[in-house]
Structures are given as structure tokens and as C-alpha cells.
């Protein structure tokens, strides 16, 4: 329940506690179970999402058993790269936990920093996936239609990638909301600029380095440049978001965190069922 106020609280920690108790909406937040509605709905969604991924993973496993599809998946996969990006995604879950913890402690700058890290790691994971897809399509000849293995592989990992991308988008929204309303108002948060810098540079660095590895694919470079242009635009467009984050939004960050952890856990299963299983 976001109810933004028109006044801009600069430092959330300074706010006194009495406002919440007289808030007429506060009563609505009390639920029969004590679990907030949003969290309950997110759990319901995740239960449903389990079935989505369950269906996709079983499709892949069934077909893998019937038709190996590609001659040697071990030759196809680069377990080092995927292992690394899986590790990064796991670490992002760790950072997400720190984010939620900071949010509950009302430590906004800390929350922002951890959130940034989570997003960054998510981006690195996505970059790895983009690289992997391009590599498979162009170098290994595995496409959606080249074999059933290609069909199940791309649709399964692609669906997961879309989940991660939506998660990144969602967390980015909260990151922007947690920025001070006026960008000049850093209140001593000098690291903010640094964070923003890393944020801008890192995906570009990842993508550019991928470009040099795979030099014939200009798309990486374009993606990097695109992100470089897109990010300042998002910041500019974020006027309606900045300064919106308030103390009670810790719940929303926690709900986003639930989603993020779920997506990571699902990846562990996919990593096992799609990649590791080929090395048995």
C-alpha cells in the first residue's frame, strides 16, 4: 500500500512513530493471519510460478531422456561460465537479503547500496545468458528449431531470464524510488555518485568484454551503448519515482525480495536439471 505524500521526507530515520498509529488506513493493514496481504499474494503467486517452472523443467527432462537432441551437451555447455553466473545470481540473493534487512532497519543508504549490488549481479547474470544464447546460436548451431533440445532449452532458460529481467526492472524501480527527491540532495551520501558510476559502467564493461571475446557480434556493443544511453534516461524519467520510498515500503522491498529469492532458487534447480545433469 503505497501512499506517497506530497511532502518529501529527506531522512526517513528522523520521522517519528506517531503518524502511523493515527493513520486511518493502518487498520486496513491488519489481517486475519498477521501476514500482510501483499506477502500472502506473493506467496500464492510463487506457488503458481513453481508449477510454471515445474512444467517447463519436466518438459525438458522428459525430452532429454527420449531424444538427447544435441550430440554432446557437454561439448555445448561451458560449465565454467554458467557456474560463475549461477554463483553471481546466488550472491545477488545474499545481497537481496541484506537489502531487506537494511530496509527493515530503516537504513536507506545501506538499502540503496545493497539494492544496487543485487541489480548489478542480476545484470551480470543476464549478460552471461545473452552471451550464452548468442554463442549457442552462432557458434554451436543450437536454435529453437534445430532440435527438441534447443526448443526446451531456450524456452526454459529464456523464461527464467525473463523472470530475472522483470526482477531487475522491479528492483530498479525501488532503487529509483529510494533516491532523494532532488538529485542534488545527497545529504552526505558521497558514495551515491560512485554507486551510480559503477552501475552505469559495469554492465557496459561486461558487455564490452564479451564483445572482445566474441568479436563478430556487434549486438553486444550495441547493447552496452544502449544501456549506457538508457540508464541516464531512466534516471531523468524517474522524477515521479524519486523520493517515493518511505519506511512502510520496507514491506514492498521484502515482497520483491521474495520474488528475487524464488527466481534464484529456481535457477539452482534449472542449473542442476539442465546443465549439471549432463556431466553425470
Amino acid at each position, binding site marked *: 500500500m503505497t501512499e506517497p505524500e506530497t511532502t518529501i521526507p529527506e531522512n526517513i530515520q528522523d520521522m517519528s512513530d506517531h503518524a502511523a498509529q493515527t493513520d486511518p488506513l493502518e*487498520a486496513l493493514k491488519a489481517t*486475519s493471519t498477521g501476514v500482510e496481504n501483499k506477502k*500472502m*499474494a506473493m506467496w500464492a503467486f510463487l506457488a503458481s510460478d513453481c*508449477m510454471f517452472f515445474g*512444467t517447463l523443467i519436466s518438459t525438458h527432462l522428459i525430452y532429454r531422456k527420449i531424444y538427447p537432441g544435441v550430440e554432446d551437451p557437454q561439448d555445448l555447455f561451458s560449465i565454467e561460465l554458467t557456474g560463475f553466473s549461477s554463483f553471481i545470481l546466488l550472491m545477488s540473493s545474499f545481497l537481496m537479503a541484506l537489502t531487506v534487512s537494511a530496509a527493515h532497519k530503516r537504513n536507506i543508504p545501506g538499502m540503496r547500496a545493497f539494492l544496487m549490488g543485487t541489480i548489478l549481479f542480476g545484470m551480470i547474470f543476464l549478460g552471461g545468458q545473452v552471451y550464452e544464447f548468442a554463442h549457442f546460436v552462432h557458434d554451436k548451431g543450437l536454435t529453437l528449431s534445430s532440435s527438441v533440445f534447443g*526448443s526446451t532449452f531456450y524456452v526454459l532458460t529464456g523464461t527464467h531470464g525473463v523472470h530475472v529481467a522483470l526482477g531487475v526492472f522491479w528492483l530498479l524501480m525501488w532503487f529509483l524510488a529510494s533516491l532523494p527527491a532532488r538529485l542534488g540532495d545527497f545529504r552526505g551520501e558521497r558514495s551515491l555518485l560512485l554507486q551510480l558510476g559503477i552501475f552505469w559502467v559495469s554492465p557496459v564493461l561486461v558487455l564490452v568484454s564479451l564483445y572482445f571475446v566474441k568479436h563478430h557480434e556487434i549486438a553486444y556493443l550495441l547493447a552496452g551503448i544502449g544501456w549506457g544511453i538508457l540508464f541516464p534516461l531512466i534516471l531523468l524519467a524517474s522524477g515521479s519515482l524519486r523520493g517515493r520510498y518511505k519506511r512502510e515500503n520496507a514491506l514492498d522491498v521484502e515482497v520483491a525480495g521474495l520474488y528475487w529469492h524464488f527466481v534464484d532458487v529456481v535457477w539452482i534447480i534449472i542449473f542442476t536439471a539442465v546443465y549439471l545433469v549432463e556431466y553425470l
Partner: protein
Amino acid sequence: MSTAASHEQIADIDAGADSHGIWTRPLRKTGIVGFLTTVDHKKIGIAYAVGALFFLLVGGVEALIIRLQLMTPENDLIDARTYNQLFTMHGTTMVFLAVMPLSAAFFNYIMPLQIGARDVAFPRLNALGLWTFILGGIVINLSWFFQGGAPAIGWFGYAPLTSRQFSPDLGTDFWIIGLQILGIASLVGSFNFITTIVNMRAPGMSMMRLPLFTWMTLITSFLIILAFPAITIALVELMFDRHFGTHFFEVSGGGKPILWQHLFWIFGHPEVYILILPAMGIISEVLPVFSRKPLFGYPLVVFSGAVIGFLGFAVWSHHMFTTGLGIVATSAFAFLTMLISIPTGVKIFNWIGTIWGGRIRFTTPMLFALGFIWMFMMGGFTGIMHSSPPVDAQQQDSYFVIAHFHYVLIGGSIFALICGIYYWFPKVTGRMMNDFFGKILFYTIFIGFNLAFFPMHILGMSGMPRRTHTYKAEMGWSEANLWSTIGALILGFGIATFVIQLIYSCFRGEKTSSDPWDARTLEWETASPPKEYNFAYNPVIHARDQSWENKYGKTGKRMEKIAPGEHGIHMPDQSWWPLVVSIGLFIAGMGVVFHGQPLEALVPFVTSEIDVSLLHLTVPGLVLTFYAIFKWALEGPGGYHLHPSPEELKGTREAQPHEQQGH
């Protein structure tokens, strides 16, 4: 609506005042804007019902054309392809556009009233469910107007008949996308209902005090969120097969058509219970009221509903006994299927136990409820028959199966839903539907239904396969088919007249009190029709059949009424964004349907070499969707306060400090 209540906008938390966005927050409650932006669960429930009844009539007309075609052997009223399109659309329409949304109408309207809530947990999400349902229904039916016409693949869409090779026309694409959008409607609705039932019960309304209908809503919602992903993924895979060259179900590329059947029935069997459990909930409400007795064995009825839902996920392969499963799998699924008849039987026993020793009033809803028990029992018995694979080997895909599931879905679901409409109509409109006319309609529908579907048992056992648009006179099926068609016409006449009576009664029905049936559950405690805020006070529950206890129970079991605080009752603001999100999804979906089609084949008077691609419609549609979601998040639930009039607050008391948390 708010004549008796003062209306006060909460200005400071309203994002409508926000200058961002192309629209300001809509405030009008009436007219077209009020309708398109409503977040009131009652208006949404009515809109669901209107849409569902419309599609019920559409599906009914399709059924009647099917029956007329089969009236005589080698009839040529319609050709084979039209017939195949009609049975495909009839099945799809009845399952996804008539029975499910009609159940959802009751979930929306009745369930929050039964648990003493002001609204569902996420009112705007509820509106999204409504609009995606309506647009999904439109997408599926739009297929009639494009090249190739409606899909002719059966509502089950078995691969590989659905592939580009065997179904090159657009109908199948409309079907895929329509079902995906409807899936979104069902899923968001269910997340909402689960949260609402688990979290927003009035104080004292423990889970074992929930009215049975609310219980069945909860179980149905769980079934939906766990079953729909299977078909969503299956449809995604099919869409990829048709558009992007994957091989999920293509034999030539190494795919297995049987996979579609598994995925479809992992969804499809729970779907059967999604269709019937709400009906059972309605019956479990109506029987006690008109027997003037509590439900017999409430815990067991609840528990058996949960067991049915749980087992529903473990029996899907009984739809596939003839596909060449192994002996072990066939035996296991046969055994589990037989098992599921036990909790179903328990319900029937308990309903009989409920009327046993009661004082039965034969009102129209009660007649439909009793008719339900008979017809559902019949459908259950034939179900037991084909739980045995050797018997099923003869009955599968024959008219026997058609008889079976129409006994369960018309005699079961539709009877119960009509029963629910007669029962709750006075609550929704404050008017009655004429009882004598209702009874005549009941007998018309009951006789017409049995005349239409009982002969199909005979047809099935004498070897008439399903989905055949004609048959030879030598087969000996002519008489039974003729009578079945006559029955179908009587049934259709009955349903159509029922809809006319419904519309008539909305305007001319006799006015009535808030509790005309001397009913048992909480929704009868509030006004008919209920005010926007449902209850002027916050009810505190002390018994299972709270309304009954208020009238006849001991003092300690009566409900307490707590007056709202000085702020009044908080109501959520209306919003455009659910509608915009749905439209975005609609556009994106159409883009997928038309993907790869030459433009000139789609749009008249256009000569162009261009093939439609995802860039033309899907990407803009998704951008619109995400933009709308973004704005949705930004505007927040908003809200304003209403103050009930003093006479509505009669008998209430102030909240004690420890009750501050209650709502």
C-alpha cells in the same frame, strides 16, 4: 449509492492530484466511466455475471446448431468444418467463458460479503481479472471473422492436429492467445481470492466458521493457481511450435504429441473440479437454508472438498486410458480415480443428511439444489463406470462420455449456478424472481436436460463416437438423436426464458427485505442490495451460521457490531489502469496471432507486401502494458472515506482499544 452517506475525498493520499500521467484518477461512480474504472467487487461480480450469461447463450446457440445437425442421419444443415468449429467453440466457450466466469461472479460478489470484508484484498487486481476475462472472450470469438474462421481443433486441442501443418488457419492462434489471456484473468482473480479469504475475514470468523461457499472458493482458487500454469506452458509451447519453429509437439522434429495430452489434462482434470466445487459450495449453502437445519457434517464436507481438490491432481491420465499407457500406469490411475468418488460420495451423503429431519421449503433455488443432487449423482455414477479402463475403452470418446460430463456440468454446475442466481438475486437487486415461474422453468430445464442427455448414454453404448458431424442411418442411432435434439431445444428454451426472467426481475421483480429466505450466513445481515461498503459496521463473529444465530441462537452467539471510527469507512479509489493493462495485453496478443501473416489478407482495402511481425503490435502492446503497470504502481490504491448514516449504525458499539486492529 452514497445518498445516505457523506462522501469525503482523502485528498492528500490521492495520486489523482498527481500531475503525472495522461489521466487523472477517475471519480465518477456512474455512467460509462464509472463502469470502466470500477474497483467495487459487487459491480465487478455483476459484470462477470452479465458477460458469463452472454457467453452461456452464445455457447448454447452453438450447441443447438450442433444438435439440429445431428437430429437426422446424414443431415446437411451445416458442413463438417462448421460443425467442428462449433463443437470446439461450444466447449471452449462453456468451460472458460460461461461456467468459470459465472462462478467467478459469485466469488466476487458473495465471498467478501460472507466473510464480512469491505472488498477483496486487491480491488484493482480484481478489475484486471474482469477486463482480461472479457477481452479474452472477445479474442477467442473474434476468430469467426478472420480467414479460416473459428478453430476446429476441439476444446482439448490435441497435438499434432493443432500444428501449422494440419491447422494452418488463424483460428487456432486466436484460441491459444484467448486462452492465455483468460488464464491471466483466472490467475490474478485467484491470487486475490486466496489473499482475501485467508487474510480479510471479520474478527471471530475462524476458518472453521467460514461459509461453505467461501471454503469452496478458496479450494477452487488453489486449484486454479496450481493447475493453470500447466496449460499456460503447454499453450506457450504450442505457440512457439506454430510461430517460431520449435518441436515440442512436432513428430517430425522429435516431439511427442502425448506430452500435450499430459500437460493439458494435468490442467484439465483439476479444471473439472474448478467447475464443480463452486457449484457444490452453492448447494451446501442453499440446502441448509431451505431445510432450516445446519449443514450435516460441516468439517467432513470441507475436508472432502479439499481431498477432491488434492486428488484432482493425481488422476489426469484417466482421460488417456486409450493412448497406450502401460499396465501399471493404467491400473494406478484407475485406482486413484475410483478413490476420488469417495469424497464426492461423502458430499452427497452429507447433503441428504442435511435435509433429513429438516423442514423442506420447495422454493425455486431449493428445487434446483435438489435437482443438482439427482443429476450430479447420475453423472457421478457414469463417472464410476469409466473409471474402469476396460469399460472406458468402449466409452472413451463416445456419446456416453458426453452424457456423463453434461450430467456433471449442466446437471451439476449449471443447475447450481442457476440455483445460486435464484438464491442470491434478492441480495444483489433487492428484488425477487417470481417463484412460480421459476418452478415452471426448473421443470422445463430438468425435463429438457434429461431428454437431451439421457439418450446419449444409449448412443454411446451403441457405438456413436464424439465429434462426428453425421452418421449413417444403418447405425440405429436415429431415434435417440432425434429425441436428444428435441430435449436440447426444450433445454435451450428453458435457459433462454430464464435469462429473460432474470432481466425482467431486475426491473420489475417484487421488492423484498434484506433476508427473504430466513437464511443462515453473514451476507444476509446487510442491506439488499448492499451498500458500497458492504457493512456499515465491523461485524465480530461468534458462530458458524452467524445470521441464523442472530435470529434464533443464544445471546452469546450473536454477532457484535462495531461502529467505524471517526474517520469513517475507507474505500479504495477507482482506476483506469486495469483496463489499460488488459487492452495492452489484448494488442500484444493480437500481434502474436497475426505474426507472419500478410497484411493484405487481414485488413480490407490494403494492398501491401508487408507481413505482420511482432514489432507491429506485440511490442507496442507490451510497452502499453508495462507503462500501465508502472502507472498502476505509482497511483497506489488511493482512497476516500464514507460515513454510514446513523440508522445504519443502530445497535453498534464503539471499538475497544484492543480491537483497533480489526476492520
